[in-house]
């Protein structure tokens, strides 16, 4: 894994001063992915499924090849992969199609305060409409999901467990496999938000045995405008579509219509074609490096940075034991939006805010946090720059009276 070579693949890094530590919001894109989009638009940029001419056939083959790549990326089958607009859209599909049609007021939905808004608000809506009860798994003192705490809320009434694979604020990895096993014993299905997991760790849906799992292209070197929903075949089969129209139907009569099988049932209209191809290219890129290597490298950078960060006075770190490349922190007394401007001045990109996860921000009892997240294109030198910028920022804000 040669970081210098990797960096050369990312055109945006031609700006040598740029230190990009906001991968958890969106990753940078390698030229291989950009080239794939260009290839589509320049060589066979036509619609799929609908034509029987050669260019359209090529586009269709490429589109379905991307689906096969996604399937093998997470060890699923072709029919279990639905392309969506993004992880948020995919997670909503589960709630709207499975949730609204299977839950009643006697049921319970387990969620956690670690969830991204996109994995808690859809279930709030299901709860509002069906009357099913939303039950929060109590986090432990570090803010983690533990099996013991999961057991404390899991009951015979539990019908759905919505849980994040990796928290986008705390960087913790949830014990998905154990959660699924226990949930299945109660007959509940498990929806996994893998938006922060897919780019960083190998996912095996057979091993996890989860029922649904979602992620986004743009966080894993792929384009914007595409996400993936994995659903177990037998579940997808019973679920109604939530969008109706072109290409998802079989026969259409004036007052009546029938649907294709999954995944097409859930993909109405012209799909995100270029985006699917780009996601396929991103997966090639990730698999070429190896998810294990990626994870190891991120941890290396994180460990190095965490150690130095801990030594700086007046820095509050909220996830000292993070399992991934995500560090959430604040400079004492300095609002994160003031801090972020300082880092921006050093051309260090980081995020400040509640990271679309207000519940865990409230759990932390802070207004907002800074978040640095590391990925394959970051270097140890960048970690040093970052740490030194943190120190200087603290000194600066002190000096002007914060």
């Amino acid at each position, binding site marked *: 894994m040669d970081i210098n070579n990797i960096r050369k693949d990312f055109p945006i890094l031609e700006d040598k001063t740029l230190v990009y530590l906001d991968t958890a919001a969106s990753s940078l894109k390698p030229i291989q992915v950009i080239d794939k989009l260009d290839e589509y638009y320049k060589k066979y940029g036509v619609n799929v499924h609908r034509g029987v001419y050669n260019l359209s056939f090529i586009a269709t083959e490429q589109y379905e090849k991307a689906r096969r790549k996604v399937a093998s990326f997470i060890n699923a089958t072709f029919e279990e992969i639905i392309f969506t607009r993004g992880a948020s859209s995919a997670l909503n599909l589960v709630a709207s199609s499975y949730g609204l049609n299977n839950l009643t007021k006697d049921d319970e939905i387990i969620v956690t305060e670690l969830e991204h808004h996109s994995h808690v608000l859809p279930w709030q809506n299901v709860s509002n409409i069906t009357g099913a009860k939303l039950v929060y798994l109590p986090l432990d003192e570090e803010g983690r999901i533990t099996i013991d705490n999961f057991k404390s809320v899991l009951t015979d009434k539990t019908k759905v467990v919505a849980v994040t694979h990796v928290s986008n604020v705390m960087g913790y990895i949830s014990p998905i496999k154990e959660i699924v096993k226990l949930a299945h014993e109660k007959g509940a299905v498990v929806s996994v938000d893998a938006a922060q997991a897919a780019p960083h760790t190998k996912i095996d849906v057979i091993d996890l045995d989860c029922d649904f799992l979602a992620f986004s292209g743009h966080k894993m070197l792929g384009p914007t405008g595409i996400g993936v929903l994995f659903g177990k075949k037998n579940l997808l089969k019973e679920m109604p579509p939530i969008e109706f129209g072109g290409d998802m139907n079989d026969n259409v009569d004036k007052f009546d219509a029938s649907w294709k099988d999954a995944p097409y049932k859930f993909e109405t209209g012209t799909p995100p074609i270029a985006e699917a191809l780009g996601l396929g290219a991103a997966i090639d890129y990730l698999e070429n490096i190896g998810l294990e290597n990626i994870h190891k490298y991120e941890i290396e950078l994180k460990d190095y940075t965490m150690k130095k960060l801990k030594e700086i006075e007046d820095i509050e770190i909220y996830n000292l034991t993070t399992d991934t490349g995500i560090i959430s922190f604040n400079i004492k007394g300095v609002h994160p*939006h003031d801090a972020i401007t*300082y880092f*921006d*001045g050093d051309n260090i990109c980081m995020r*400040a805010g509640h990271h679309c996860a207000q519940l865990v921000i409230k759990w932390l009892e802070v207004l907002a946090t800074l978040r640095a997240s590391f990925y394959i294109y970051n270097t140890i030198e960048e970690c040093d720059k970052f740490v030194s910028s943190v120190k*200087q920022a603290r000194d600066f804000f002190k000096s*002007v*009276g914060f």
Partner: protein
Amino acid sequence: MNNMEVLYRQVIMDHYKNPRNKGLVQDELYKTIHIKNPTCGDDITVQSKISNGVVEDVRHDGTGCSICCSSASVMSETLLGKSVDDAIKIKDAYINMLTNKEYDEEVELEEAVAYTGVRKFPARIKCASIAWKAFEGTLDESE
């Protein structure tokens, strides 16, 4: 390398640390506007009391970054006692100044002039304008 001093002027820090006219009142004569930027967490409420075409009082409260909170305080001091017409002129000049549009340089921005540095930080312009927008909202309510 980092020219943050341009942004964090003494005036700004002073108002951030010691906000003037802070705290809301329960009074029907006041118009109240609440503006939030859910993404960054800025959350500002502004109240104004207008009578006989004069800004008789301006109050504010909320949470946010130093630029956001201080500018609410600076605004309140700048506009208090002005005629509504002048207040609007000042507000317009200020917003146009921030967004690098043409503005009437004759208009006296008073302490609000400290925010000229914000123009160098486009991502923060919103922080410096949110309280003023809220004030603008209270005038619309008064009409």
